[in-house]
């Protein structure tokens, strides 16, 4: 005991730490990543293999419209305005310009990836109880070499008890933003993403704004990103205003989310009312790919008869059959009426 009392506090702590059973890594921030946040849609199955599948990507890109006025709209980003340029072009030059514009539009319509929520990092590199009491703060070591992706950097933390561990996801995000700041991303997230403010923004129907901000601020596998996007998609689903995101990069992930959660009935109804039947058929095809066990999956898909595909889905897998049926019926009636009108006009003209 005499010897024990003569040792310094730090050494005593070190001896106690080394002889006692290994303590769990004290990581209070880690609890935030998984336990208290609500479960999202992408918890049970991994959506990434399906999202990055070529067929799915093709469908999602086809379904997103190509309204160039919306894609190339003026951006309110405090940049100085440039006066428009008017040029005379030959037909060949015009076609070239149109091709370039098409490529630029494709680049602007790149969809944010849909991936599974990330798991908390719990890896310990080494335990050095001899370093207990060295300092009153943690040390974070970040590899700032140029050219490494932010997701693959080494970021290590030396805790107060001497444990050298991999940094948690929050610490990683913070360090990456400090040493490698991104445009539009803040160190402390925008207050928009808090519940009260998010609700306010969604009530004002600023969906694209929130989604753009979420894309800039968070990584796609961040639980906060999935929470925010989930809430926005649910708000859109409740208000049935899917066309707000038409011709934007967020339409694809929106469709993917709704199909994944089997909530496409309202969307199909809206598409039929807008007479966008091929898009409706595409959504049903997507449903067949994401849920291969569904009853209408075996039904042969005919590209020229999109209404048949939607009908097959409605008869076998639809959860809100009545509304969809009504929409299809009214569409068919409208088509009949138009045909009749056309025939009458032709008869009146004597053809």
């Amino acid at each position, binding site marked *: 005991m005499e010897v024990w009392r003569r040792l310094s506090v730090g050494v005593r702590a070190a001896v106690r730490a080394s002889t006692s059973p290994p303590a769990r890594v004290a990581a209070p921030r880690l609890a935030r990543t998984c336990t208290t946040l609500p479960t999202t849609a992408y918890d049970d199955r991994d959506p990434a293999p399906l999202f990055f*599948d*070529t067929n799915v990507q093709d469908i999602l890109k086809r379904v997103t419209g190509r309204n160039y006025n919306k894609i190339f709209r003026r951006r309110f980003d405090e940049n100085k305005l440039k006066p428009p340029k008017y040029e005379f072009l030959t037909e060949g030059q015009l076609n070239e310009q149109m091709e370039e514009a098409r490529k630029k539009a494709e680049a602007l319509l790149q969809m944010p990836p849909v991936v599974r929520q990330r798991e908390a990092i719990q890896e310990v590199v080494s335990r050095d109880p001899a370093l207990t009491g060295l300092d009153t703060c943690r040390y974070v070591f970040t590899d700032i070499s140029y050219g490494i992706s932010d997701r693959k950097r080494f970021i290590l933390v030396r805790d107060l008890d001497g444990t050298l561990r*991999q940094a948690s996801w929050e610490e990683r995000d913070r360090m990456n933003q400090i040493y490698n700041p991104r445009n539009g991303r803040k160190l402390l997230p925008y207050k928009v993403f808090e519940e009260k403010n998010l609700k306010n923004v969604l009530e004002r129907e600023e969906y694209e704004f929130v989604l753009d901000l979420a894309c800039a601020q968070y990584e796609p596998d961040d639980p906060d990103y999935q929470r925010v996007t989930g809430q926005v998609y649910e708000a859109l689903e409740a208000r049935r205003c899917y066309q707000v995101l038409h011709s934007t990069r967020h339409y694809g992930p929106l469709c993917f989310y709704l199909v994944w959660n089997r909530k496409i009935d309202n969307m199909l109804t809206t598409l039929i009312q807008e007479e966008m039947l091929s898009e409706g058929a595409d959504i049903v095809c997507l449903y067949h790919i994401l849920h291969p066990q569904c009853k209408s999956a075996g039904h042969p898909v005919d590209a020229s008869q999109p209404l048949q595909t939607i009908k097959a889905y409605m008869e076998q897998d639809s959860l809100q059959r009545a509304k969809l049926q009504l929409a299809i019926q009214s569409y068919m009636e409208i088509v009949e009426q138009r045909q009749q009108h056309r025939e009458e006009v032709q008869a009146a003209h004597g053809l």
Partner: protein
Amino acid sequence: MSVSSLVAGVLRAATGLHTGRTGARSILQGWHRGVALSAAVRCEENDDEDNVKVKAEVDPAKDRSQVIPVETSLKYMQSQAYQTTYGDDPVWKKYRRNFKGAFAPRETRKTCIRSGVISTGNPCPACRDEYLVLDPVNVTLLRQFISPHNNAILPTSTTNLCRKKQQALTVAVRQARDLGLLTFDIPFRHYHYPDYYPTVDSTSSTTPVSHSTELPPPSSQTRDSTGHSDSQGHCGLAAVTLEDSEGCHSDSQGHCGLAAVTLEDSEGCHSDSQGHCGLAAVTLEDSEGCRSDSRGR
């Protein structure tokens, strides 16, 4: 001359104007005896009827000591009084700035309000009306100072706000944008798909094999003795001693990590249009040094 007599002289000169001879003498005595007497001196002065200051009468139109709450301002913006005063124009539209000559000074005045009172003859649009409160919640007012063409805050050359109010406006607009009350556009964020799903190849059209998308934590890359980097190649944080003859192979993404490079050859570090030697401590035994490729360091 001694220090105390110097100090006494200074004190006499300084206090002679204000307190008169009796005051100076008592202060001097206080200086010699300690500072404790100064409070007594002050109390004596306050009791003196001749020296009681009369509180200056403030014109109520110029009094800005009262802080108007935001809710009042919000109501004011919808009221008839506001409509009569400003109509549909922004509040700065009909304000005219006063200055000598043809060209306005580059900066507006520092502030219109000093000690809670308007201290100028022509206060700026935000100071002249006390019910215009610059707050993140007061979005209708903030929008009047934001350009409708590119969402930028209008400069004082257009709005003629005093510098203090321009700063308050900037703070309020930034807070409103943070809360989402004012919308704006941010630069486009491009995603590098292979970062999120490693088997995605932008050129191939085959269906990718389903893999776990969880990226291995960075430390799972083994650092072997030859220091070969893996497909994402870098040598990591450590001081790597390379024993082979070819040095640090860097591949399309390779680099040598965080070490300082000591090269024994005469050619130094081969770098190309992008290359540089990074921050690592790498001792290379070969003659070619750290061969970098199109991106390597």
